[in-house]
């Protein structure tokens, strides 16, 4: 083994504080090190060239760069190694800038000492590392889009236009989703169906889109590039290709049921056209409502259908698909207003929801008056949103604007109307929204800041009495209204919840689908190859929905376009000799990447490389390919090796996403923390096993801290629980050996918690100082205490 060590000055950033020559001198005595250089800018071309040249001249097979954070320049040096003909993981960085020169700038000597230890840790780690081949996977061009609202429509069109094969599955008999039900759309007031129908027609006609309406997903298995999907197409009993939508059948059909498209305010027949803009534009028989298909009881529609479209023998069809990527666009449901009984929805005839008003307006424009709207109209905002009493803490984001829109439409249609919007905060955040709000005020719509506690019905005229505190004048206003419109919020649709369960997609605390990272991966789900778009991810308006749908399509294309994609090299591996197939690991894996086949088998594309499974294996059969047990143990050993008596060493295991980034941020901000704290980078702290921690204590660690991403931003769901369990085991073992259990702790972080990080690093050092070093006889006991399962 031949290692080259390169100590970087970072143009003074490091060398003004750390004695780089001393570090280089020290490194030259480390095992297997054959070249050491101290260079002004390692990341510069000349710095990188030095590595490439040395690999050639000294036949180096491993490289350590003692410089800045691997998160900063890691990929640079990986590329350098590729150029030099080595595997990219054969370079290790010692982060002596963010973790030593900067946070300890006031104590240059300590900073130098720490830089030496960090360098030794990196050398020891790379000595245990094995060259890892980057694996690629073949991937095809088949995309499953679930849900045919505007999100699913947009994503399908983008993908299809880019030459990908789309299977669009919609559970109802037509695509269009909620947008098809709307009147006009804020803030521009274009007619919803006028802008939607061309897109719906494009979907129906596109050669690359296979439209499967009236269909449901039965089962999804496999993983990115290799999903197996089973779909059931329900029988329509009407041949789409023949039906001319002449509506003759409706005239003879004897059965009337509530029309769901009009939210039950009108009736439809058992054979019906789902809406006037239905796509596919064909009738369908509602088998539950029909008097009887098998055996046939009525048969009237068949007799009148001149197109011969009716087929009572239609059967469900089952389809199996091989799919490469999936976009979930299963949308929202409106909040069930009956859950706020104080507003009397369903009880008072003049209290309706905003979606019902949308339908009333559309129908009226087509000459069909569902019910009179009246002159005095009130909108009540935030119904089912921002309300702890119903468990929805979030703002639904669109109801302020849709109420403003509906009020404007009604006011313009009849300026003698007196319209009030009762709100708490008016959210007009989007492009053109504030102007639209101003416009509504200009029309004479009154925005009153206050929400009513309850509504009452005048028993004589059935009008609704609204009493509300105008919180700006502190007076109670009371007025009778012809119509009260509840601005109901958005909740995840039933279909969204079902699909989340089927695909094992995590949901955030608001119940909507959780994205892989709220800032940087907003349309990825934590499962590779599955994306989310539209209101399934959270309440949003049409422009945001469409933007997200295009983004999801682009993300799917990014993955599929090259025909293969490179997987992260950080993956779990099972030692088949050791594994006895007990199945413990399965329970710990947060993404179901382990299958049992006599022995445990890792599904490589699914595995996220968190390492949560490692500590669960009673036979130590699991390891990670990068950040392996050996590598981490080597780092621990090196961190503790030259510790002098009385000196303290705290090991902070930092997950690579949150805690490590946070520590870099703290360093960059030159916030000081104890120089006794040594950071060890891991993909997730759940890969740090109780055995490792106990071994570290045995070797002289004075404290151990595990940092992990907060659940909400973590790419690995549920690892915090594994960490909690592991820490508890270590605490128990420490107690048994008579060692203070608070020497080991853990905490969730997000990348901005600077003071919290500093406090914790200092607190751990303080604890160690308070207790002193762990006496040798107690440490030895750790050897024999059992890790309690």
């Amino acid at each position, binding site marked *: 083994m031949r290692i080259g060590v390169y100590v970087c000055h970072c143009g003074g950033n490091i060398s003004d504080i750390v004695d780089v020559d001393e570090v280089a001198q020290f490194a030259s005595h480390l095992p297997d090190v054959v070249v050491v250089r101290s260079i002004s800018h390692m990341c510069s071309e000349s710095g990188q060239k030095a590595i490439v040249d040395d690999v050639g001249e000294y036949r180096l097979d491993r490289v350590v760069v003692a410089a800045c954070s691997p998160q900063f320049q890691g990929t640079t040096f990986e590329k350098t190694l590729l150029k030099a003909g080595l595997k990219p993981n054969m370079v290790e960085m010692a982060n002596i800038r963010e973790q030593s020169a900067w946070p300890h700038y006031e104590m240059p000597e300590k900073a130098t000492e720490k830089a030496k230890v960090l360098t030794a840790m990196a050398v020891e780690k790379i000595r245990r590392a094995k060259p890892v081949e980057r694996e690629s996977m073949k991937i095809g061009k088949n995309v499953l889009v679930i849900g045919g609202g505007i999100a699913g429509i947009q994503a399908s069109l983008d993908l299809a236009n880019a030459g990908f094969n789309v299977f669009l599955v919609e559970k109802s008999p037509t695509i269009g989703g909620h947008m098809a039900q709307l009147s006009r759309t804020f803030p521009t007031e274009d007619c919803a169906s006028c802008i939607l129908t061309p897109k719906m027609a494009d979907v129906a006609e596109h050669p690359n889109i296979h439209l499967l309406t009236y269909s449901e997903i039965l089962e999804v298995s496999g993983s990115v590039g290799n999903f197996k999907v089973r779909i059931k197409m329900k029988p329509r009993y009407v041949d789409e290709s023949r039906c001319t939508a002449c509506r003759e059948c409706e005239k003879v059909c004897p059965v009337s049921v509530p029309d769901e498209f009009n939210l039950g305010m009108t009736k439809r027949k058992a054979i019906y056209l789902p809406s006037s803009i239905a796509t596919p534009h064909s009738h369908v028989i509602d088998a539950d409502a029909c008097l009887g298909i098998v055996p046939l009881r009525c048969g009237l529609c068949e007799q009148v259908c001149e197109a011969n479209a009716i087929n009572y023998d239609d059967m469900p069809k089952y389809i199996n698909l091989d799919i490469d990527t999936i976009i979930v666009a299963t949308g929202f449901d409106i909040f069930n207003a009956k859950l706020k009984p104080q507003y009397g929805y369903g009880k008072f005839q003049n209290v309706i929801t905003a979606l019902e008003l949308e339908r009333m307006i559309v129908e009226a424009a087509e000459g069909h008056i569902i019910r009179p709207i009246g002159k005095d109209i009130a909108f009540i905002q935030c119904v089912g949103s921002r309300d702890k009493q119903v468990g929805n803490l979030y703002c639904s984001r669109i109801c302020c604007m849709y109420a403003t829109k509906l009020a404007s439409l009604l006011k313009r249609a009849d300026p003698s109307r007196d319209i009030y919007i009762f709100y*708490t905060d008016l959210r007009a955040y989007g492009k053109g929204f504030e102007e639209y709000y101003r416009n509504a005020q200009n029309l004479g719509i009154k925005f009153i800041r206050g*929400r009513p506690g309850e509504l009452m019905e005048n028993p004589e005229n059935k009008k609704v009495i609204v009493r509300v505190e105008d919180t700006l004048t502190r007076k109670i206003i009371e007025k009778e209204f012809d119509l009260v419109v509840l601005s109901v919020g958005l909740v995840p649709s039933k279909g969204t919840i079902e699909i989340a369960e089927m695909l094992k997609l995590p949901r955030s605390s608001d119940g909507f689908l959780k994205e892989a990272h709220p800032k940087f991966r907003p349309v990825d789900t934590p499962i590779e190859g599955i994306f989310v778009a539209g209101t399934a991810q959270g309440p949003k308006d049409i422009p945001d929905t469409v933007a997200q749908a295009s983004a999801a399509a682009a993300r799917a294309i990014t993955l599929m376009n090259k025909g293969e994609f490179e997987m992260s090299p950080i993956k779990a591996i099972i030692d088949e000799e050791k594994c006895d197939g007990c199945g413990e690991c399965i329970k710990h894996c947060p993404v179901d990447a382990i299958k049992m086949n006599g022995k445990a088998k890792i599904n490589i594309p699914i595995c996220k490389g968190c390492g949560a499974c490692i500590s669960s294996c009673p036979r130590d059969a699991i390891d990670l390919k990068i950040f392996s047990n050996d590598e981490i143990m080597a780092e621990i050993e090196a961190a503790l090796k030259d510790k002098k008596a009385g000196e303290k060493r705290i090991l902070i295991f930092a997950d690579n996403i949150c805690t490590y980034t946070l520590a870099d941020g703290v360093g960059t901000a030159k916030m000081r923390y104890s120089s006794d704290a040594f950071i060890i980078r891991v993909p997730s702290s759940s890969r740090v096993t109780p055995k490792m921690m106990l071994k570290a204590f045995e070797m002289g660690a004075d404290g151990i801290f595990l940092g992990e991403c907060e659940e909400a931003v973590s790419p690995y769901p549920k690892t915090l629980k594994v960490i909690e369990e592991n820490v508890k085991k270590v605490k128990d073992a420490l107690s048994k050996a008579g060692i203070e259990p608070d020497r080991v702790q853990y905490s969730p972080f997000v990348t901005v918690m600077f003071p919290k990080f500093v406090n914790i690093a200092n607190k751990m050092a303080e604890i160690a100082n308070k207790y002193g070093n762990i006496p040798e006889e107690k440490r030895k006991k750790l050897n024999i205490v059992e890790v309690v399962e």
Partner: protein
Amino acid sequence: MTEVIHIEKKNVKFLQKVVELSGEEVTMCEQCGICTTSCPMAEEMDVSPAGIMRAVQIGDESVVESKAIWFCASCFTCTVRCPRGIDLAKVTEALRQLTLRKNVDHIDLDEVKKESLPAIALVSALRKFTG
């Protein structure tokens, strides 16, 4: 005339005191006014329930002198409806405690003729008007 309230340390202290006594995070109130129109006594009050919450938020101590806090019937309607989950009844109780803890008797038991008040009113009066 628009009254000016100068925010000083004592305003913050007052808020802290009420939060401490009531155990309720008064700053969480979003001033929606739901409590006011839920309150059966609101029309009798010189400051509305939501107004009381606002006064406490800005540390306006004069709210302790309001009649409203004594009108609160502790019916808890506001509490079950507050969208921020604040127990307002506890806040008004805390404000009453601020007066009660001054140890001034507003009712002299000896002067109350036993039959003149219904028993429940007597108990309530003792709770509210006696420190």
